[in-house]
């Protein structure tokens, strides 16, 4: 079964890829935040993201997931870390 984390992962990947295009350098990690009501499991989201990112510039990226105390905190892409050459 496709869990909701799969859709979140795809949506997150699309958002990061947009930024990668603008930035033109390799993304290393991303920080995201959410509240309890987003029902996000770190393990499943990371697994789904890894799978979705295969073959894209985001392959191998690390995800950092912050769970906010506010239950209805929105699911946000907070920050992306890019490699500098």
């Amino acid at each position, binding site marked *: *079964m*496709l*869990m*909701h984390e*799969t*859709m*979140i992962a795809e*949506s*997150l990947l699309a*958002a990061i890829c947009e*930024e990668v295009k603008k*930035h033109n*350098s390799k993304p*290393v990690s991303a920080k*995201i935040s959410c509240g*309890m*009501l*987003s*029902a*996000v499991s770190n393990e499943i989201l990371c697994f789904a993201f890894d799978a979705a990112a295969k073959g894209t510039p985001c392959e191998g990226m690390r995800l950092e997931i912050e769970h906010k105390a506010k*239950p209805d905190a*929105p*699911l*946000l*892409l*907070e*920050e*992306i*870390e*890019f*490699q*500098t050459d």
Partner: protein
Amino acid sequence: MQKKTIREKILSANEEYALKNSRFLAQQKKLCLNMISSPGSGKTTILARMISDLKGKIKIGVIEGDIQTDLDAQKIRATGAPAVQVNTAGACHLSAAQISDALQNLPVGDLDVIFIENVGNLVCPSAFELGETAKVVVLSVAEGDDKPAKYPAIFAKSKVLLINKIDLLKPDNQVDFDIERVKADARKLNKGIEIFPISAKTGERMTEWYDWLLKAIDLPL
């Protein structure tokens, strides 16, 4: 390394559709309730009973969400109500874009209320807004009284909790289920939640829920 602050909403595509749906429903002045529960809690039976009990009073339309088959839509159509089946082909929840399409295929103008029967799942559907007026969570007594404590998100987000299959609590306590515990746990998460213990099978106490529904149709939530 270089850090870039983004602060952008993930799932914004779903939210855009949800917003579109809620605008459409507001414009049409229609109540739309998103029913969420585990598989087998009795959502379809509640809907079928409600449609026949309220025949002549209100017109109900249903959007049925299932991973596969149109069995539920067939059951609803057998009662005479319009139903649209959405198959998610593996996904564990309905998305707002699917509801947007389904609304096009319902005679919305003729209806008083639209029920969305989400895919049977107590976790995933709670994370996806569909543009509905409110969420209704269904819990059947056979599932156990620890569910609000174990699956808080959906109980925190719902306007109504229907506790179904109360006929199983009698006459000789076929299931262990502390209704007061469920009420207390649900209210701890959600002070204003309306709770109706019902049996869609026997029809017991359905009228209390119908009264709430009829009021909600006249007065927007």
